């Protein structure tokens, strides 16, 4: 008797607790959107989704947001379960992996059908989303690396302006280094450090992409210079070991001369560094104008039930109106030419320094590097970077490190081929 009631209770409880799962689903016209750690934009999205629903009656929008490192885990689990979000906001080179495995919808036909959609965007940023001649994403918001200069330290070291060549870059760094102070820092996740190699003519892979091409005398010498300058304190060690908080924090503490990072760093650094204002912080291009982008774009999952509607949605989200609204609330470039122009103009008034930083992001977009569309980018990174770290931190002879890196990379390429 008692047992029965218990069992009954348990069953009832189960039904009730499981309810949310059943209540969801159905409804043919449902779009689910997975964004990459921008939950802070909830207000804006609420408004925009509202507009979209008004324009497309009977459509529901489910908004999901996951933190960067967690998004792939979530997205792939959803794919396996056969319920991928229709639209996904992807950063960096992850998309190539999905595109190459046929997980994303090819947007080229849509773009051909509606040519003026492509016209919205800065072509260089749009072309960043091309794999084997097909476009898979539309730019959501974009950033690329630039060189932040601590003008105060430049003055102390008697240096006029930002470095104009790699030699100057290293020279300046060594000049500014003394005691606590170091000359140069770079972010190193993804391929953000790659411009430093590119500007010295280093190529990662052979033109056909079948072999590693970086194991040269020149590269070895370059690594040796990095190692030397790092040991002497010209280059801050964190440049090779830190991730996000450490390098930006170090630069914000005012003891580092130059920071090679993308525009997102500005807001973080400004938040921590009370010393920062238009007279003390300079925003310049790296010598040779090379830079690595870290872009966000909207893609449509192959598993989407109604891709056309999804296309309508990303078209809407990247329209001049939405883009400039996004620029306004998040002070970031959208690669939508009109929106960026307008946004920069208004930012010029309220926060000129931020405007100056963002301005660098739409110049020299023809010299983007480190964003090669390779489906095994992540593996490549893991094969290449640790060895470089070993070399520049003086834990391995540059030649040896390069040889090991080459071996690892070539094995990867061979396995993939």
């Amino acid at each position: 008797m008692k047992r029965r009631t218990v069992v009954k209770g348990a069953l009832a409880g189960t039904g009730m607790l499981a309810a949310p799962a059943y209540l969801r689903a159905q409804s043919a016209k449902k779009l689910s959107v997975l964004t990459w750690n921008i939950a802070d934009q909830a207000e804006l999205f609420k408004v925009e989704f509202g507009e979209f629903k008004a324009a497309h009656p009977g459509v529901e929008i489910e908004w999901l947001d996951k933190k960067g490192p967690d998004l792939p885990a979530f997205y792939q689990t959803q794919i396996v379960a056969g319920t991928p979000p229709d639209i996904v906001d992807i950063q960096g080179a992850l998309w190539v992996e999905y595109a190459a495995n046929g997980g994303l919808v090819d947007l080229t036909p849509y773009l051909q059908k509606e040519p003026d959609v492509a016209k919205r965007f800065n072509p260089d940023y749009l072309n960043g989303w091309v794999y084997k001649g097909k476009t898979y994403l539309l730019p959501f918001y974009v950033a690329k690396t630039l060189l932040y200069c601590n003008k105060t330290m430049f003055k102390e070291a008697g240096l006029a302006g930002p470095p104009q060549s790699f030699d100057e870059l290293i020279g300046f760094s060594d000049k500014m280094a003394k005691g606590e102070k170091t000359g140069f820092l770079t972010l190193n996740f993804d391929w953000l450090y790659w411009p430093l190699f590119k500007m010295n003519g280093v190529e990662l892979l052979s033109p056909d992409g079948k072999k590693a091409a970086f194991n040269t005398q020149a590269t070895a010498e370059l690594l040796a210079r990095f190692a030397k300058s790092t040991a002497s304190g010209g280059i801050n060690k964190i440049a090779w070991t830190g991730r996000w908080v450490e390098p930006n924090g170090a630069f914000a503490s005012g003891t580092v001369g130059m920071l090679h990072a993308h525009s997102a760093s500005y807001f973080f650094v400004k938040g921590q560094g009370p010393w920062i204002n238009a007279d003390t912080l300079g925003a310049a291009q790296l010598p040779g104008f090379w830079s690595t982008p870290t872009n966000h774009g909207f893609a449509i999952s192959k598993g989407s039930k109604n891709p056309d509607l999804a296309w309508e949605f990303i078209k809407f989200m990247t329209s001049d109106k939405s883009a400039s609204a996004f620029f306004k609330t998040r002070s970031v470039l959208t690669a939508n030419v009109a929106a960026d122009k307008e946004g920069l103009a208004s930012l010029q008034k309220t926060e000129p320094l931020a405007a100056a930083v963002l301005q660098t992001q739409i110049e020299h977009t023809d010299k983007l590097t480190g964003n090669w569309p390779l489906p095994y980018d992540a593996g490549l990174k893991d094969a290449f970077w640790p060895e470089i770290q070993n070399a520049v931190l003086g834990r391995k002879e540059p030649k040896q490190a390069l040889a090991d890196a080459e071996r690892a990379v070539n094995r990867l390429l061979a396995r993939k081929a």
Partner: protein
Amino acid sequence: MAGVWRVRRQRTRLALLLWCFLAPSLAIFLLYRVIPVIWNLVLSFQYWSPLKPAEPAGLDHYEDLLYDDVFWQALWNTLIVIASAPIGIVLALVLALLVNAEIRGRDAYRTIIFTSYPLMTVAVAIIWRWMFDERVGLLNYAARSLHLIDTPIPFLNSFTWALPCVIVANIWQMLGFYMIILLTGLQNIPHELHEAAAIDGASAAGRFRRITLPLLRPSIFLAFVIGMLNSVTSFDLVYVMTGGGPGRATEILVTYIYKLGFNQTKFDDAAAVTVVFFVLLVATTWGANRFAGGEAGAAETE
């Protein structure tokens, strides 16, 4: 005759009932432990990714592992972590002996020392990341104000320090747990033994070696197994504190499995690593059990 029958029937009925009692737990473990392991096992012999249908791969993935430096590094680091568990246990043993003495406020001490165990690992990781912070971390601050070092140590960013730091954080969290388990063991050692030995004129050290340690073995075994499992599977800790970096300095098998699967969409390779990892754990536990003289195992399977 009939009596025998009744007894037997009762026995079977009891056994049936007992299995019913076990059923819920068994079901849960089946769903969330056993089946997934089998899934991994199968997957490790296939080529598969969320976007591709599976096809047989034979031993390819295991072969790949042989040439995969990262795998070996991660395996090595994992072994180091396992090897570090005894450090915590020794510390805990000392503490257990101390809080086992008849002193005032020992319950307070026990509670304080145990308090770090209930904490959420992610939070523990964040806390210790802050403690180890290069510029404003407490450790660097202390070391500098004591003039032990003149330039701050980038603990979590240095190849030499990163792994020890993670291990320290882990021990900090597990210490109380070890202590309690060992304390139990101590309290279950009958006093008479000690007194008898004392009368026979055995020194404190001698008593400890001859009586306490041997009788403590099962507890030590338990502490080791739980602690070992907890630290090698402490994904959150490494993931938040160092993300496996710098380089591969703190890459352990769990984090590597996660990265292989979800960052590189190589779930098949990840499955192979998982199988190896699983075997490693089982082997270690078995070894520890042997070392403990099998009492622990006996306690279970008697």
